[in-house]
């Protein structure tokens, strides 16, 4: 009431007295965010240091950009990891990204609601399995002694080597990703599809538009904002490509086919003790990720889409 005339310090004290119990409730959450999201950010200084575990972060020597130069002078292992990352992310954008959209369109166009619900509960399931389980299932189904080999030998064909074959590794990753997450990915698209005004379809039908024309002129434009939203969020992860999934299968195919930036950081840093250079790779990767999201969002705004911020305060 009189807050406007109060001096700032008295106002602060009064609000503290009023809100102390709420702030106390917030404290554990804030403490976790501070300790495990913000404090580790500071740990990135070791990207600029010659970090020695027994001396500690503060005691280790500064090396400036030394750790970065090792990477950008063309360390072949790093370049290999970068190349694999870019190939996998490209394959994901082409195959993994559109798959749930197509599946959602297919499910949405079903007339039978009951059948649709059954399909949904089956296809959502693999999302809740761990990568260990998914990889284990794939290895046993497609690998030696599995049903695929049994089927091929019954047909008199050769024994297909898929598991452990470096040239099949990247398609295998994509296949596993689609198997695990495609059904789950349809949720948002189905919600968007349900939100399209049904009168538009009726009007189009009256005007004699075919089902395909309706798809391209009503359905796809109707879910465009959601597609763009998911694409923007995906772009932030362009350099993170299925870390757990790859770590689990790396031993079978070797580093040449399977090393990506995240596994490079793990293998060189935590396994190999190259803390500084690995932290440098992680830092560059993180910064590029944030820049990509912001840039993609900006681009979406330029094209008149909502992006990720608009609507955040509603």
């Amino acid at each position: 009431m009189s807050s406007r005339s109060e001096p700032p310090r008295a106002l602060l004290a009064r609000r503290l007295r009023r809100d102390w119990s709420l702030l106390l409730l917030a404290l554990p959450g804030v403490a976790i965010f501070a300790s495990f999201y913000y404090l580790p950010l500071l740990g990135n200084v070791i990207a600029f240091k010659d970090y020695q575990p027994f001396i500690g972060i503060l005691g280790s020597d500064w090396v400036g950009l030394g750790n970065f130069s090792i990477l950008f002078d063309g360390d072949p292992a790093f370049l290999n990891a970068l190349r694999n990352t870019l190939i996998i992310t490209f394959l994901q954008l082409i195959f993994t990204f559109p798959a749930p959209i197509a599946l959602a369109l297919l499910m949405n166009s079903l007339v039978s609601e009951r059948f649709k619900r059954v399909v949904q509960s089956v296809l959502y399931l693999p999302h809740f399995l761990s990568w260990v389980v998914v990889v284990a299932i794939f290895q046993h189904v497609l690998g030696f002694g599995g049903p695929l080999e049994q089927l091929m030998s019954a047909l008199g064909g050769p024994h297909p080597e898929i598991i452990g074959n470096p040239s099949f590794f990247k398609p295998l990753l994509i296949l596993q990703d689609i198997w695990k997450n495609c059904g789950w990915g349809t949720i948002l698209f189905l919600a968007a599809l349900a939100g399209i005004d049904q009168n538009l379809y009726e009007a189009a039908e009256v005007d004699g538009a075919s089902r395909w024309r309706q798809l391209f002129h009503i359905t796809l434009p109707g879910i465009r904002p959601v597609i763009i939203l998911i694409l923007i969020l995906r772009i932030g992860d362009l350099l993170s490509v299925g870390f757990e999934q790859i770590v689990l299968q790396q031993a079978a195919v070797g580093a040449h086919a399977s090393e990506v930036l995240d596994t490079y950081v793990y293998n060189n840093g935590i396994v190999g003790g190259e803390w500084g250079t690995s932290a440098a790779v992680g830092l560059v990767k993180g910064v590029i990720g944030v820049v990509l999201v912001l840039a993609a969002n900006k681009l979406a705004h330029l094209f008149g889409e909502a992006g990720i911020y608009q609507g955040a305060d509603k």
Partner: protein
Amino acid sequence: MTSLTRRPHAPAEVGKMIILTLCCLIVLGPFVMVVSTSLADSSQVGRGGGLVLWPERPTFDAYRSILAGGQVTTALGVSAFVTIVGTLLALAVTSTLAYALSRTHLLFGRVILLGVLATMLFSAGMIPMYLTVKQFGLLNSLWALIIPVTVSAFNVIVMRAFFGSLPAELTEAALIDGAGEFRIFWTIVLPLSKPILAAIGLFYAVNFWNTFFSAMLYIDDQKKWPIQLVLRQYLINNSQVGVTDAGAVPPSQPALQMAILVLSLIPIACVYPFLQKHFTKGVLTGAVKG
């Protein structure tokens, strides 16, 4: 007026149903084989050489010898501990923060909210995260699998939106009657929030049960391995499953492996119907308020 577009077009409808049924078979088929193999006796597995489609003489021998005690039993216990304690702790930390942030005009509320939202954009990276966990003395402790992930920005936002949608009159009336914030939160807000607590609790629980990589990073001691690390050892690295109580005819390795896999899936199978009920709502609230 009835909807014109919902008029079924028979051949197309049947075609779509066939395609989607195939998709379901591709998802479910492997599970049938996993369960069948875990139940098959060793002579049948020996003939097939790997997974079997249907157990001819079903037997629980594989399960019996695994559950007789040993690494798998220990790991299931570890995972149960991490999941139960982790989920309760995560719900407590997430809901209290979300409640405080749902009250408008909270002192520093805006700053805290921005701080929470910002974490959705970046993460510190694996090496700094490892060093932080080490610095807190959590290496080789099960708390390393729990504490760093007891709160996620996404879940805070979803819960805050839910609390914000409760009628403000309830809390105002309680405040006038002299109730403190703790009391309002515990006796009024939480009981009204059971649906969202269930939804987010289930999400947290599934994640805790599936914890793999952080365990691989932070836990060396095999006695503290959660079930996912044991699965990797026996199913992906193909270590021989040791059997303490072999019986007359010891179960075959594939049967033992698949039995471990099935055991690891039982909790997921138990909560899946509840997940079904709650998850769509949770995801959609989060996405809309995102």
